[in-house]
């Protein structure tokens, strides 16, 4: 059974503007994109401005309104943080917009209110004023439920749709479309919320007199094919609340992810894939000069379930063999009782390679050597190493630990003297 969550953060853009300009807190504020209001502060909303208005109309409705421009680059880190919080629930996370994220929770039990409250607690108030979380059997209906709830929140007289359950909590609103009532919910939806389609297609649907999803299901598909050609099957599917688009595996910047499709692979083939995953992960980590202290294996099954196993270790790992054996252990721990379609190996909690140390010992036979060129040779070696590493990473002299049998002359630790 598929279960998709759509997370919408309210006042996301305004909150980001407040971070950069704390002096704008508490005054009517609107974020403008292409001469239209994208987001408004609660003070501006109280004054009558709302998203979708033109700049002129917003200023007319709320005379003291201040404007800031939409700056995509300024929201990137916050959007990544939002996706990172959602990644805690599932490896399949898709960023739909700056303040919108889809999470694929298929195959698992619906998350409890406690789990959702935890997610909302991470989001609010650092990323926005509140969150709207909708759960539905597909992306189309999940986002449609949020759109319907938001439009109802804007105008109090919006009709309640059958099949949509809503409930408010302290820092988030929950909208649920159950699988059994999804068709009923979809049939009453206005075509405007068929959001994966382009605006021109929606306009044409409305021009044909098709105002709701139910209107589309009521006409023969042949007519739709004549009007919309190859897009007709997609529209027919959407009108019945069907959207089988998969949510891709999320790749957080602080993790190294290997992902592969493997329809119908058995355990031997999966082990082979894990070898490739270990090679890729180890090479990437070595190139970045990092080690991982956490490995997570996600196995995606044909019936939409996801088996996730995680292993954490105190010592960072970046060797192929070590990562391979750990991931193989995770595979053995995973409960695989169906056809595997995809696997994903994530290396997380990345730390610098602190154990890349080089200790040079003097040959015991040359200890106390009176050889004339001994000191010159050593000094030359030190100069070569000093040129190779950045200043300060090579320590020499009395501060170094020495053993009885050998005298440590030099200790190279690129990360010890950061």
């Amino acid at each position, binding site marked *: 059974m598929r279960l998709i969550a759509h997370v919408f953060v309210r006042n996301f853009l305004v909150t980001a503007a407040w971070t950069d300009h704390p002096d704008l807190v508490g005054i009517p504020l609107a974020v403008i994109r292409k001469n239209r209001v994208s987001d408004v502060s609660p003070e501006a909303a109280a004054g009558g401005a709302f998203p979708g208005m033109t700049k002129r109309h917003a200023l007319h409705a709320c005379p003291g309104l201040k404007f800031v421009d939409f700056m995509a680059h300024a929201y990137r880190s916050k959007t990544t943080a939002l996706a990172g919080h959602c990644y805690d629930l599932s490896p399949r996370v898709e960023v739909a917009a700056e303040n919108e994220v889809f999470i694929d929770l298929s195959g698992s039990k619906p998350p409890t209110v406690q789990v959702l409250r935890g997610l909302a607690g991470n989001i609010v108030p650092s990323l926005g004023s509140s969150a709207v979380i909708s759960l539905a059997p597909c992306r189309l209906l999940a986002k449609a439920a949020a759109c319907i709830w938001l439009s109802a929140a804007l105008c109090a007289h919006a009709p309640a749709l059958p099949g949509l359950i809503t409930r408010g909590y302290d820092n988030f609103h929950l909208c649920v479309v159950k699988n059994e009532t999804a*068709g009923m919910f979809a049939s009453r939806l206005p075509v405007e919320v068929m959001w994966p389609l382009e605006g021109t297609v929606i306009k044409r649907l409305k021009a044909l007199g098709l105002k709701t999803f139910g209107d589309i299901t009521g006409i023969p598909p042949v007519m739709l094919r004549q009007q919309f050609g190859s897009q007709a099957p997609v529209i*027919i*599917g959407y009108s019945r609340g*069907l959207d*089988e688009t998969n949510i891709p595996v999320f790749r957080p910047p602080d993790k190294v992810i290997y992902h592969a499709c493997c329809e119908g692979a058995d355990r031997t083939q999966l082990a082979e894939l894990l070898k490739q995953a270990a090679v890729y992960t180890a090479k990437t980590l070595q190139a970045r000069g990092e080690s991982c202290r956490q490995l997570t294996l996600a196995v995606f099954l044909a019936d939409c379930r996801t088996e996730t196993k995680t292993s954490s270790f105190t010592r960072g790992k970046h060797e192929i063999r070590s990562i391979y054996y750990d991931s193989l252990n995770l595979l053995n721990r995973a409960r695989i009782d169906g056809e595997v379609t995809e696997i994903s190996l994530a290396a997380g909690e990345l730390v610098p390679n602190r154990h890349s140390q080089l200790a040079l010992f003097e040959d015991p036979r040359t200890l106390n050597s009176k050889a004339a060129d001994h000191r010159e040779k050593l000094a030359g070696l030190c100069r070569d190493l000093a040129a190779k590493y950045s200043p300060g990473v090579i320590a020499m002299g009395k501060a170094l630990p020495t053993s009885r049998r050998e005298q440590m002359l030099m200790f190279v630790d690129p990360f010890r003297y950061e």
Partner: protein
Amino acid sequence: MSKFVDKRVEVRCDSRNAPLAFRWNGRWAPVNRILEVWKDTGTWWDGEAEKTFYRLESTAGGLYELYLDNVNQTWFLYRIYD
């Protein structure tokens, strides 16, 4: 000719509880039109539940028979016509 299936399927219904689409072989098959609807009481004297049968055509042109177990409210794909 037809193939007897009689397996439970996931069905998306409209507000009148008529099938809009059903999931078979991992894919959703949207319903083009419902050709016939009838009720089957079955062996009621043995306690068999009443079923509502739908003969329908998918948008891909396939002909199917689905039934709804009225007691458990579960859907089954009964038969696929060649």
